[in-house]
């Protein structure tokens, strides 16, 4: 698992690589929540994410809730393959703001 954080217009983009599971979901959640508490708008980029388990999805739900409470934006972009299927299976695709790419969100925000 690798994580890169970079700025794109008014957003902090968290790029996830590899697999999010029980071993790393908590630290990813804490990283994102820290950014949210500093009033950053968030884009989580799934483009290079190969797998995310339930603990990863639950952690993102917590981060999304934190964003709502801090009145900041929270988007997930680039979901494909297994992570997209997990979003659909858990019906979290109806919960999160999903978009195709960082540019789609970042250029319109």
């Amino acid at each position, binding site marked *: 698992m690798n994580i890169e954080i970079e700025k794109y217009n008014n957003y902090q983009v968290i790029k996830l690589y590899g697999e999010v599971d029980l071993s790393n979901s908590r630290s990813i959640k804490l990283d994102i929540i820290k950014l949210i508490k500093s009033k950053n708008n968030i884009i989580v980029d799934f483009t290079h994410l190969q*797998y995310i388990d339930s603990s990863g*999805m639950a952690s993102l739900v917590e981060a999304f809730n934190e964003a709502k409470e801090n009145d900041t934006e929270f988007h997930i972009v680039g979901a494909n393959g297994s992570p997209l299927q997990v979003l659909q299976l858990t019906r979290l695709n109806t919960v999160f703001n999903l978009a195709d790419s960082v540019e789609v969100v970042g250029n319109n925000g």
Partner: protein
Amino acid sequence: MVKPIITVEHLFAQYGDTQVLKDVNLEVNTGEILVVMGGSGSGKSTLLNHMLGLKTPTSGTIMIDDVNIFNAKNKQLRNLRKKMGVAFQGGALLSSLNVADNVRLPLEHNTSLDTQTIDIMVRMKLEVMNMADTGHLMPSELSGGMLKRAGLARAVIMDPKLLFFDEPSAGLDPTTAVELDELILTLRDAMNMTIVVVTHELESVFKIADRVVVLFGGEVVANGTVDDIKNSPDERIHNMINRQPNTHRDDGEVYFNRLLNKDKD
């Protein structure tokens, strides 16, 4: 070539004088749904119990994820069990805990996740099982189908690589049975699970199986695709599929020896 996640080799098991499994050999490939099918007394539940490491065989080996489960060290077995989920026939929920507390048990015991994360995971899994808002119910308040789905929610709460499901549709009405079959297919596809299902329900076998192993009298009598099984020339399989009573009888000499308790084989 796909690597098998489970390899069963020359497995023999007996209860008392009765040989229950006789030289069972099979492989389960990563990402497939393997159905072990057979009538009552065929040995399928015994085979499942051996795969789960709940029984020790007379001889033979079972390798799961490169671990020989019959001579593995405790730590190896603990790590392996974290990758395995088991949905038992009746759900096997603890009657003193409500549904949510049953489902969260594996996470409480095996992870150090935050309580809120666990709460969300439990609700998410109940949602997947079409059991939203049932977390507060006690097992005694659930129907048979709900018990199975709650048991399945607990079995997959850790997102196991390998799921064992004992008789998913037994005793359910046809609609609920179909829903559970759909759920099994979805779990395989979305969560990349390898799934071993033990059942005698033909509709379920034909709907979900990538491959079928048929047990008869403790022996593997067929191992192939659904079409292979449907087209099998074996009379025992033909009778099973067409719901004909088993008319296979041992010849006179075998029967004679059995009457006199002469030959245990």
